């Protein structure tokens, strides 16, 4: 029986992707050289653009979104030496971007607060409120600017461990290409 907790608008993946890339990253590498976050996002976006007609636009959008997720893992992993997994999956009409990592309790609590609100409220209002409250903007920005749905699953920790969070951003292919 699964003990997964689903937060917000977690888009279930269709069967098999048309194209996909998955990479393992160690958060300590990202923290010690921050530009690696962007390097990974750019590489994954470059790899995936061949599935899109408007490649320059798709590269920019995919890299922007992936960078936010990789930066998220760099900032909020419970243990900077436990690898995180980043992936982009192109399912045709929908593209799923994901980061899976062991998250700090504080980050899990923050996602439990934000994601249900993002799933139900106007993303612009959420973005504005977080700007005023001086809280992180990344996920609200993705929801607002890229009409993305943002959700997560939280897998409870083993004894002594930390919860594993799978944070997933779903975007339409039309949004990736800005059609």
């Amino acid at each position, binding site marked *: 029986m699964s003990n997964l907790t689903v937060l917000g608008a977690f888009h279930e993946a269709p069967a098999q992707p048309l194209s996909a890339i998955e990479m393992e990253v160690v958060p300590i590498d990202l923290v010690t050289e921050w530009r690696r976050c962007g390097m990974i996002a750019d590489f994954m976006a470059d790899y995936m653009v061949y599935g899109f007609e408007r490649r320059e636009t798709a590269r920019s959008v995919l890299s922007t979104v992936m960078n*936010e997720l990789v930066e998220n893992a760099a900032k909020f992993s419970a243990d900077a030496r436990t690898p995180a997994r980043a992936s982009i999956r192109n399912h045709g009409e929908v593209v799923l971007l994901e980061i899976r990592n062991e998250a700090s309790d504080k980050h899990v609590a923050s996602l439990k607060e934000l994601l249900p609100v993002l799933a139900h409220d106007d993303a612009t209002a959420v973005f504005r409120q977080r700007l005023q409250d001086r809280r992180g903007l990344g996920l609200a920005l993705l929801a607002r*600017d890229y009409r993305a749905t943002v959700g997560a699953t939280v897998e409870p920790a083993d004894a002594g461990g930390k919860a594993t969070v799978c944070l997933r951003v779903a975007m339409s292919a039309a949004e990736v290409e800005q059609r």
Partner: protein
Amino acid sequence: MKAPRPDYSVDAGQSPGTWLLRGVMRLESPEAYARAFEPIVASLTKLPAISLDLSQVVFLNSSGIRALADVLLLAREKRCQVTLFGSAAVPWQKKLASSLTALFPEFVMRVDR
């Protein structure tokens, strides 16, 4: 060992209060952006109007958008008019223009150059 060259630059333009930003701005923290935007912040406390040309910024992460919003909030407080220039060819810049219009209706962002 020499520190790696930054991926971005923030340069003063030819006219006072004009700023040209270039490159990849994916800095790691609000403090890093505060350092990068320090000359811009200094200029808006001295001038009635400034402009920021973002059209050559390839990427700006959400921490950067937060930092830019902070600049605009300060400009509002100091009654300094800000004009931003962006490129319609860069997706995040078009999105930013839309966000800024919603949040800062008194400031203009032109995405046509």
